[in-house]
């Protein structure tokens, strides 16, 4: 994707471009810049793009958790995990650069092995060794195939759903009905819309404008908390 080796490479580029502190990443800012970057890059290489989308989802996840009152610790943990990965990858790039310098332009030439009279293999093995080796090679094989590009078509449809629009939508509905069925809020709509709705909901909860019912089934409007968004 573009000239980037991967999403970590892209993030390091953004961090350095915007003079951010790698030890204190500002997730919201980074997410916004990262999304803009992905927008700029061509979306032709879908397989590579999947890794970039995964990182986008991860940044959204961290940001989302940071908005939840009781999940700040978890958000901080995930954020420092990402920081660790970025630092590790930055070191990896520095080592790669050092190796590039060490590579000598003039190679040594070596000889092919001089033909020798063959002596037969002298060891004997038990056939059960083969069965074990076969199991080792096949038995715990991991599914390595990346998901087919088609699976990402829906995601890369690129519909922009502003969170603010979903906040207005939720407040409008709540003003009329005072409470809404939690699941109904997420019914239908595209994935990006549902994610935006979810973040909007988190925003409203954090701001104390709405709350969830005891059984988590309903969203309830906190009276007197309407004005600021009207």
């Amino acid at each position, binding site marked *: 994707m573009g000239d980037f080796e*991967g999403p970590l490479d892209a993030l390091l580029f953004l961090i350095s471009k915007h003079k*951010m502190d790698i030890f204190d990443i500002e997730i919201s800012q980074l997410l916004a810049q990262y999304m803009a970057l992905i927008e700029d890059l061509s979306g032709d290489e879908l397989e590579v793009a999947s890794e970039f989308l995964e990182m986008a989802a991860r940044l959204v996840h961290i940001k989302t958790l940071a908005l939840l009152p009781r999940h700040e610790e978890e958000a901080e943990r995930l954020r420092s995990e990402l920081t660790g990965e970025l630092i590790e990858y930055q070191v990896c790039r520095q*080592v*790669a650069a050092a190796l590039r310098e060490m590579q*000598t332009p*003039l190679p040594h*030439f070596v000889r092919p092995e001089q033909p020798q009279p063959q002596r037969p293999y002298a060891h004997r093995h038990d056939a059960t060794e083969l069965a074990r080796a076969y199991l080792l090679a096949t038995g715990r094989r991991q599914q390595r195939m990346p998901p087919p590009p088609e699976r990402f078509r829906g*995601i890369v449809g690129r*519909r922009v759903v502003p969170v*603010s629009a979903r906040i207005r939508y939720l407040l409008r509905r709540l003003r009329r009905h005072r409470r809404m069925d939690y699941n109904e809020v997420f019914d239908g709509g595209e994935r990006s819309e549902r994610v935006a709705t979810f973040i909007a909901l988190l925003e409203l909860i954090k701001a104390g404008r709405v709350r969830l019912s005891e059984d988590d089934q309903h969203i309830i409007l906190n009276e007197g908390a309407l004005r600021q968004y009207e």
Partner: protein
Amino acid sequence: MNELQRKILAILFASGDPIGGDRLAEALDITLEDVDKLLLTLSDWLSDLDMPFEILYLGGQYQLATRRELAPIISAALDTRRAAPLTQASLEVLAIIAYNQPVTRAFIEQVRGVDSSSIVANLTQKGFIEEVDRLDIPGRPIAFGTTPLFLRTFGISDLSELPDPHSFSAQPMPDEDTADAHMPQDPDQMDLEL
């Protein structure tokens, strides 16, 4: 050149590939220390004679190779195509393996954040890395390590000659405007585009 050195030179010559000092010791029925000593003087002797090849010491193994300055004429005569320089991705994978071996492909991908299987396959095929074993961890994944060709390519005799890892470190970016920045409370900044 004494008789033992003559034999050692013959073995290195015929082998082509790097050969362990222990194997030379066994074949010649002498100690490893003797082998190392004999190779040192043999090496000096070859260079005094201005021979076009030299003895390389690569991770405990010895290999005969032509001197670097002769590479252009050999390339021309044997019509060898110059190997394409290693790509950034290949160098990154080599860096991870060199400093952490034995390492699994999963580890490499974790550090780089991208699928690296084709690069690992390519480096294996070119002989810079090789399977060393399966690790004794669940799933028994295959682990990779670097080869003598890796050492030769980067002009070192031993992994300990790799640049000190502590000389590499994350550079903190200037923190001028980090103070005011935490979660923006303006919802318009959170437009989502998935």
